[in-house]
């Protein structure tokens, strides 16, 4: 299996606070990898360092075999790695359609942007109904779908989702997870950050548990679901 993302000994500090202290993680082609951990463990920092919005102090990030540790955020998107941030961050005063168009900003070919937007409308019919509405008028679940759809318009080979289930009702969480599975089946690798470990491990192939900026447990999802340490800390007894 080819490696899509390879993080090696990554260290990130915010001033004196060390957020990552030598983190190692890989994502393979067509894989869903769950990244679990408590608040402040360094999950968001990890994906932000990959997408280039946070700079690392040491270590390396490789994507598709090339070093991207010092690459600009826009060149990382051009390489096919898209980060869907925590809290969705959709553009609330742009329409749903404009949000999607902006997702295809790096794509030179307008026809393929239009084609992918149609695919997003197929995946999330609610978005098609609301294409002319301002993004800010959508419900939380719809905003999450818009954020995922917007990322898909860039045509990513790896999509990194930061807490997509946050603040959503259980039924909506299930819909979001289904959407992630179908995106993955269509060939996109997924790095999924979740506090909702149960939902994440249900769809993931592999998982990592991190604590204080280091990986503490790693392995196949089935193994993590059975690991007493993980069960106790993240899944509840």
């Amino acid at each position, binding site marked *: 299996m080819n490696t899509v993302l390879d993080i090696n000994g990554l260290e990130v500090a915010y001033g004196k606070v060390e957020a990552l202290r030598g983190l190692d993680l890989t994502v393979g082609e067509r894989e869903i990898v769950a990244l679990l951990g408590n608040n402040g463990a360094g999950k968001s920092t990890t994906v932000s360092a990959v*997408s*280039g*919005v946070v700079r690392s102090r040491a270590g390396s990030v490789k994507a598709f075999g090339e070093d991207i540790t010092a690459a*600009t*955020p*826009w060149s*990382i*998107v*051009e390489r096919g790695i*898209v*980060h*869907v*941030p925590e*809290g969705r*961050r*959709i*553009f*609330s*005063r*742009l329409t749903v359609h*404009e949000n999607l*168009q*902006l*997702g295809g*900003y*790096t794509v030179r070919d307008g026809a393929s942007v239009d084609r992918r937007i149609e695919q997003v409308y197929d995946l999330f019919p609610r978005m098609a109904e609301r294409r002319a509405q301002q993004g*800010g*008028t*959508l419900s*939380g679940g719809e*905003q999450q779908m818009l954020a995922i759809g*917007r990322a898909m318009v*860039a045509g990513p080979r790896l999509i990194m989702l930061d807490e997509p289930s946050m603040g959503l009702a259980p039924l909506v969480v299930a819909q979001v997870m289904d959407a992630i599975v179908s995106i993955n089946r269509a060939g996109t690798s997924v790095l999924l950050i979740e506090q909702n470990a149960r939902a994440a491990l249900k769809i993931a192939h592999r998982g990592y548990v991190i604590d204080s900026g280091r990986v503490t447990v790693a392995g196949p999802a089935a193994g993590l679901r059975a690991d007493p340490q993980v069960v106790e800390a993240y899944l509840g007894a």
Partner: protein
Amino acid sequence: MDHFIQLVFSGLFVGSFYALVALGYSMVYGIIKLLNFAHGDLYMVGAFAGFTVLSVGAGALGGGLLALIAIMLVAMAATGGLGVLLERVAYRPLRGAPRLSVLITAVGASFALEYGIAVAFGPNPEVYQMGVSGGTLNVLGARLTYAQLAMTAIAVVLMIALDTLVRRTRTGRAMRAISQDPKACLLMGVNVDRVISRTFFLGSALAGAAGVMAGVYYGKIDFLMGFVIGLKAFTAAVIGGIGNLRGAVLGAVVLGLLESFSVAYIGSEWRDVFAFGFLILFLTVRPTGLLGERVTERV
């Protein structure tokens, strides 16, 4: 009645070049939340760039409408480039700094431009010798020069072009998105620095065009002419709702008409009193302006 219509036309004319300056002010504020106090000085530099072209190429250009357009284009390119440079050297390094530091830098940039031009061209006013005032036209009893009509038409074309760019193009979409959430734009692969540069280019070029219009209309330019215009453009932007481009145009037209009537009925010495009185009125009573966006964001 004729007099009334004359006042309306002169208000609209002045309003149209206030609008060109106010648009740049509002665009820059919208995208990086900076009150660019040097913006009025870019208008002044535009006037001087036009003046230079006029002096150098006076014989070759003649005095027609084409000459006016050529001079405007040169002035727009010059001020647009200068705006990009200003952002690059003065504002970009301070992107993460407190707003006050950037504001003070903008005041410094304003002085640098003013006194830079004073050194280059001398402190005395220069006469704009642009002979486009070929004829006059009677519209509903009011007298208009062809030059005024042509310049207003050019200003309207520029405004429509800008509006279309911001609403319909990829760059325009990115500008609107950056004004809401620059960090999310990075994650969409938007080269935020480049889009901000383009915004400065466009806003500054419009100010340059307005500078040439002012030179031709008033017939005289000097290195401090941008100061008051900068404040007027700010007023127009606030009246319309700062950050809102159509609002900036509306605010500028309102301000132009207000000035035109207050000069005629109360006295020209009261013109600025009215303009800035209106600014204070809006800041206290309706700080979001006429078309200001109501901020309703869902979490």
